[in-house]
């Protein structure tokens, strides 16, 4: 995260490859499923042997035996509708919820988050020199309407995407944050409104951030989990 600060996000998980290396973020949408982005994987049929989701820690390289850390093998990958760039990852065993590991709720189907809603992104990705890359970083941002956002991106932001406002100093997601959450607060509830996807530049000053709008795919997420 560029321009973030160390923080807490109990639904954000770290996806690890066979060497245990963090490569992307994800969000726990229930105890057995993590949502992330397709760009983190080479295909929808990738062999997930040795891949895992790590949660319950703010450290990118938690010490062995740290009691709150959970590392759960990934069992299955299901790709979302083509334009969604989303994937659901099934965990081999359910995550145990506690004060460091929690699920985030899904928005209502086709719900549009009001402009100005307070949200945050979280991840263990690159900070481009703006912070400590050994811990989870979090950055707050506000929702921007698609019409406003399209003024900057010249109409390229689609209905299944959403934006947050820009910062003069540059704040945004970066390499290895992809797949992580844009979590927005609705009274005392945190809702997964967006999924971080790669952009051309990380935290570029004055540039809004674009996310996949999760509410467009809630029906698919529920269908996969039910089936």
């Amino acid at each position: 995260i560029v321009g973030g600060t160390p923080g807490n996000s109990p639904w954000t998980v770290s996806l690890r490859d066979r060497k245990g290396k963090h490569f992307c973020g994800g969000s726990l949408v229930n105890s057995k499923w993590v949502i992330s982005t397709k760009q983190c994987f080479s295909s929808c049929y990738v062999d997930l042997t040795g891949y895992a989701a790590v949660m319950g820690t703010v450290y990118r390289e938690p010490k062995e035996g740290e009691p709150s850390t959970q590392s759960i093998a990934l069992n299955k990958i299901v790709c979302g509708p083509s334009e969604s760039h989303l994937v659901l990852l099934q965990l081999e065993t359910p995550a145990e919820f506690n004060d460091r590991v929690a699920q985030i709720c899904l928005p209502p189907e086709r719900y549009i988050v009001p402009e100005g809603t307070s949200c945050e992104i979280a991840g263990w990705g690159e900070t481009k020199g703006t912070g400590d890359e050994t811990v989870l970083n979090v950055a707050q941002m506000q929702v921007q309407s698609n019409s406003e956002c399209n003024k900057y991106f010249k109409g390229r932001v689609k209905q299944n995407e959403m934006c947050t406002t820009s910062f003069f100093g540059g704040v945004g997601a970066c390499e290895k944050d992809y797949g992580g959450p844009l979590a927005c607060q609705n009274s005392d509830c945190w809702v997964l409104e967006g999924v971080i996807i790669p952009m051309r530049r990380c935290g570029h000053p004055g540039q809004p951030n674009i996310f996949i709008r999760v509410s467009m795919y809630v029906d698919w997420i529920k269908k996969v989990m039910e089936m």
Partner: protein
Amino acid sequence: HRSALNDFQRSEGRELVPWKADRVNILPGISLEECAKRCSESLDCRAFNYVFRPSLICKHLPWVGNTEIAEVKRNVNCDLYEMKVYIRKCIIGNGEDYRGHVSKTKTGRTCQQWWSKFPHDHKYTPSSTNGLELNYCRNPDGDNIGPWCYTTDPERRYESCNIPQCKDEVCITCNGEDYRGQVDRTVSGKECQRWDQQNPHQHIYQPEKYPDKSLDDNYCRNPDASPMPWCYTTDPDVERESCDIRKCSEAPKRRSRSGYTTNCFRGRGEDYRGKVNETTSGIPCQRWDAQAPHEHPFYPHIYECKGLEENYCRNPDGSEAPWCFTSRAQMRTALCLQIKRCADDIEAEDCYNGNGKNYRGAVRKTRKGILCQNWSVNTPHKTKINPRTHPEANLTENYCRNPDGDLHGPWCYTTDPKTEFDYCAIKQCAGEGPPIIMPPEGVVFDECGKRDDRKLKKLR
């Protein structure tokens, strides 16, 4: 040039859980090769966990995973290496190194314990090096009959246990592209080089790049449609050699006729069995059983399931389409692209309106090209949505439909056991945008994401 790892079978992302911590020999910071070497040299080591994160740790263990006391669990930070002689269910040569758990002879008699002299007295005494454990079949004297034992039957002093030779245990059909057995020596007896190593021979067959070829350890495999399974050898002077593996005596199971095509081809045309016998430009093909004008390795009797009859266009090597050797000496091979692709193999030029709930077309493939499962059968997936539950949805055969009004278009259950359902290879008709997003009036969350946000003062 032999790697110490050749004695071991690797299980990626697995850990053998120690049941007695005091019997684990922990060696931190040594290389994988060194870990294997020391395990091979140790009398008490049969397997090792190689932990590579957060730091390198080699853990020697005196047992393997196929025993009752052992538990193997997944661990992304660790690979398990087990000595082949302890886990192999077959023998190489006379089986002097066999350390398996068979304890019955070929006639079903139970073996006598090696430490016991009753009912048969004998000269052998179990030691830490000779492997004479319990009453397991062994070959301490290098007998040609393979592993044997004294029997508990007073009338029968000893008998062979008939442990199969590894080269006979799993037989091959055709050219052995599906062979997944445990032979790790070539026809001349040379030991195979591990596929995950580049020494002594550099090669392209890195296991992670060919996940469907099962390039495990240093076992013989056939990733390139050679006539037989083969391997790179540990002899620097011999790059690769075929392996000696028994051919199955029964004819290979013919695929169901529906898999083969005669008038057109699907995919890369490996199942094309038609009678086109000239190239795209009209040059007659050379017969597969002839070696002139072009010498070639595709003998019909070796590639018996590839349909190499007469001089018909075929695809025995996974090329892009059926092909043949041409009858002209100047042109070795050519594709037979005049053979048409089957209609159901061509991406549909169909489209759906809205969310496709009223789509009644004949597309029956997912966007990844996987054939749809019939709506009215329950294999490989149990269909919760079927013609009985949704009689109005026109769930005919395995056509893509949208019985549940999925916003993302027609879908189907797939014939891939690993993919329950997927969206179909069909696009929304031009000019139609995605469904309009309607903001709900009141937001209700059934399950809520909460967290304990500590107060800043308390944190300080």
